[in-house]
């Protein structure tokens, strides 16, 4: 058992709720009155076999915005979760953490999505990182960077433990016995000496009068009964019977549907438009100018889509983006021929290449990519002049609320933001420009009635906020013994943050942490290492996509490492082991995955294996991809066979959901490795839907085996962990057959490669 001090913002306050329940809230009182329970709020659910329906009462409502544990008189526990559910299992993992320390009966635990509030529900991970400066010092309520479990783990454990202590105190009073004679199990406090048992529900009202301990006693992980178990997702039922309302499904009375007609090239202003033909479309209501284009208002989706097709518009395309992605190859190579801003310089850095027996160089290119979550973007908004309510699946609800308030001219407390479960996100629902929330707020102002802004799949694919186009220049020098004496990695990327403005205006290159991640962290023991970056500016809107720059930089590092080993005549796994001697977690996953894949045994004829290793998000992964390569005169035919993953993510709160995230990352990564690509021609995006923006399908999915290494360390992130090694391990497997380096993704760009 260890004592754990509650930091200031964790101060708890317990409140009795009508009917004898207990509501535990943060002490912070926002003083707002926006706790209206909409009654049909889809943002709750769970419990194994039943649906507890906590009844709102006036007293409870006053505290709802700050609540995070609710115990009802009939002994159900509801955990109010601050992070967003975009598929990764938040609504199961976070309640598991609280329930463990609370010693709750897991079959009587359910989840509820919290309101938007960084102060109360922000991820403590970001608080430790300093939040977003003056804007938001409380931490951010952003679900990104694989931080949910590792960020909330400690605070949720402490909350569960504190409430458990209060329930035990209440039981001690009631039974007139010392607290030390009591224990807890499955939502009961038990007095073994007398055989008496009191349920948490029975004790809840009395526990509300107790003072939460400032240093609750946490469990020894060896006694965990919930954390570390593979539990069913609490949202699985609603996601298997069609009953979950996603944003796309959510309806409010009197709502109209809006589709926005946007510029055919990014950044072109609207000159004029003609909607006269749209009036023959049944259900068309009208159109309005908004900053992002023309808001086409109709009674429903179908009418809006039909109307938008017949509206004609003139755009000042000459003032918009004119970029053609074909031109980017030369532009980025040119940029990478010049020094960038150094972000890592070990020993001699670039000078370390001097005197080498052999120097290898390659230019890597990675295309724009889009997130394409299954549920296209949508925002339901009810703007009433002096207040506003929004329903939207968001990875960043507190900022979405703030941005909407700003555009509507309302103080943030007048904007109620209801975060819904999202049909996928991959980063798109945490947009640094808050593009779709901004747009919806503008539309609401223009249309002035309850509405839902919907995006079609075409809007989604063509809507920008892509993973940035990136080029890497890699250079490795070998000494006479074939050891790597120097390693250089230069990244040119359209940047996610503001540094390109600085580079454009001042000519000074500036650091961009986001685009060098995975390059800076190159893990191998090499004496001279140099990493530098260029920030490129153009008007194609870019954004983080699952695993961000790790996906591109780790591809360059891990394939170029194998390339160097081929030149040196060395085994890629043996060399990785010998050059990672100081990194035991890397070694452990490498050894585990080699064991799973039978690396030491010779593969069958035409079967080849590739390996890659990567650490981030406080986790480590090694993956082996096994392929069959049949070499013909014109092409190398590749069949994906199996993918093995060994994962060290510290404590796996729910091992089956960790495995699911790794599987998910693999499939996501294969889509990008094999065919993912957004291209532009004179500023126009060429792809539009899943026929030309291909994603992996069932028949293309190989066998996947995942092993989680046992650990009792603090949890690491897993949402993005499965992504970065897949493409390099695949390319390395193909290279093992062909001897070629594949410096361009997607692999379909290499004319000789054909995937069966």
């Amino acid at each position: 058992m260890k004592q754990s001090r509650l930091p200031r913002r964790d101060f708890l306050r317990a409140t009795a709720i009508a009917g004898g329940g207990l509501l535990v809230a943060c002490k912070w009182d926002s003083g707002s009155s926006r706790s209206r329970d909409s009654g049909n709020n889809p943002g709750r659910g769970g419990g194994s076999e039943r649906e507890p329906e906590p009844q709102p009462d006036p007293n409870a409502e006053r505290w709802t915005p700050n609540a995070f544990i609710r115990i009802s008189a009939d002994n159900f526990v509801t955990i109010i979760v601050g992070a967003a559910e975009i598929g990764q299992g938040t609504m199961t993992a976070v309640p598991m953490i609280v329930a463990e320390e609370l010693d709750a009966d897991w079959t009587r635990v359910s989840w509820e999505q919290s309101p938007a509030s960084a102060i109360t529900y922000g991820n403590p991970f970001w608080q430790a990182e300093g939040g977003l400066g003056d804007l938001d010092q409380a931490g951010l309520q952003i679900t990104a960077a694989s931080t949910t479990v590792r960020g909330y783990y400690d605070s949720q454990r402490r909350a569960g433990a504190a409430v458990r202590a209060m329930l035990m105190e209440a039981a001690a009073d009631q039974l007139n016995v010392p607290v030390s004679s009591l224990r807890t199990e499955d939502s009961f406090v038990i007095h073994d000496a007398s055989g008496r048992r009191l349920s948490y529900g029975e004790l809840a009202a009395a526990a509300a009068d107790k003072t939460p301990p400032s240093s609750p006693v946490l469990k020894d992980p060896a006694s965990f009964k919930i954390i570390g178990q593979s539990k069913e997702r609490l949202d699985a039922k609603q996601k298997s019977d069609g009953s979950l309302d996603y944003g796309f499904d959510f309806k409010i009375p009197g709502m109209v549907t809006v589709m926005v007609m946007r510029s055919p090239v990014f950044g072109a202003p609207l000159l004029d438009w003609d909607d006269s033909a749209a009036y023959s479309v049944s259900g068309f209501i009208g159109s309005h100018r908004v900053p992002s284009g023309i808001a086409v208002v109709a009674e429903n989706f179908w009418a809006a889509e039909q109307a938008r097709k017949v509206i004609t518009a003139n755009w000042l395309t000459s003032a918009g983006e004119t970029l053609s992605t074909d031109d980017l190859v030369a532009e980025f190579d040119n940029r990478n021929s010049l020094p960038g801003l150094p972000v890592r310089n070990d020993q001699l850095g670039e000078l370390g290449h001097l005197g080498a027996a052999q120097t290898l160089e390659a230019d890597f290119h990675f295309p724009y990519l889009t997130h394409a979550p299954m549920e296209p973007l949508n925002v339901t908004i009810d703007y009433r002049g002096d207040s506003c309510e929004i329903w939207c699946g968001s990875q960043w609800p507190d900022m979405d609320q703030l941005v909407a308030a700003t555009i509507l001219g309302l103080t943030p407390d007048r904007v109620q933001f209801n975060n819904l479960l999202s049909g996928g996100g991959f980063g798109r629902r945490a947009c640094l420009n808050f593009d779709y929330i901004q747009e919806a707020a503008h539309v609401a102002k223009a249309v002035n009635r309850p509405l839902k802004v919907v995006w079609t799949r075409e809007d989604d694919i063509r809507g920008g906020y892509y993973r940035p186009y990136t080029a890497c220049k890699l250079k490795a020098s070998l000494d006479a013994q074939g050891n790597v004496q120097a390693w250089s990695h230069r990244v040119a990327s359209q940047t996610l943050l503001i540094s390109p403005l600085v580079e454009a205006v001042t000519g000074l290159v500036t650091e961009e942490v986001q685009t060098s991640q995975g390059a800076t962290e190159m893990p191998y023991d090499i004496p001279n290492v140099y990493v530098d970056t260029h920030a490129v500016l153009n008007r194609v809107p870019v954004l983080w996509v699952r695993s961000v720059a790790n996906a591109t930089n780790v591809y360059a590092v891990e394939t170029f490492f194998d390339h160097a080993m081929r030149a040196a005549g060395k085994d890629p796994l043996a060399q990785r082991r010998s050059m990672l001697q100081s990194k035991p977690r890397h070694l452990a996953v490498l050894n585990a995955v080699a064991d799973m894949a039978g690396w030491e045994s010779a593969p069958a004829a035409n079967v080849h294996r590739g390996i890659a290793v990567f650490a981030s998000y406080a986790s480590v992964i090694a993956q082996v991809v096994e392929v069959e390569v049949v070499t013909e005169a014109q092409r190398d035919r590749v069949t994906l066979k199996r993918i093995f993953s060994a994962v060290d993510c510290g404590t796996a709160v729910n091992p089956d959901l960790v495995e699911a995230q790794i599987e998910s990352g693999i499939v996501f990564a294969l889509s990008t490795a094999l065919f993912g690509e957004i291209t532009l021609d004179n500023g126009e995006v060429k792809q539009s839907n899943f026929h030309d923006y291909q994603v992996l399908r069932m028949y293309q999915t190989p066998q996947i085996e995942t092993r989680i290494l046992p650990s009792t360390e603090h949890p690491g992130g897993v949402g993005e962990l499965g992504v970065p090694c897949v493409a390099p391990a695949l390319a390395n497997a193909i290279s093992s057959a062909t001897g070629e380096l594949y410096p361009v993704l997607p692999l379909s760009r290499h004319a000789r490669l054909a995937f069966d």
Partner: protein
Amino acid sequence: MAEQKKTIALTVNGRAEQPVVEPDKPLLWVLRDELDLTGSKYGCGRALCGACTVHVDGQPTRACVTPVEAVAGKSVTTIEALDETALGVRVQRAWKSLNVPQCGYCQSGQIMAVVALLKAIPRPSDQDIDEALSGNICRCGMYPRIRKAVHELAAGGFA
């Protein structure tokens, strides 16, 4: 351009319905907007992703490109009625037990496609699964779990 609204008679989840709609309006939007059955999802609008899959006279059908007129007089089954059959209940049980859904948005379509497959081929091979389910995209990548669920269901699991 738009066609005049007509009364279209069809059966949805066993109930006789007579929506008054444009005959070329896709079945998906009739289900979602006229009949308030939102379990069938919009994902692409072009029969490319399968999120809208429903059964028309037992056959898996992409509702997003099927004009409602084409199903006049026919029987439509959606995810909302799945628990009315023993197979549907078993499939839903498998989905929960194997943690098949992640974001879950594609799963109505996946489940309708799986039920149709198991009705047509009670013991499907991997190739049968590839052929029947490759039209259903899952961006969360839960294909291995769906395949596992189908095999376990075919072996009599989740009864």
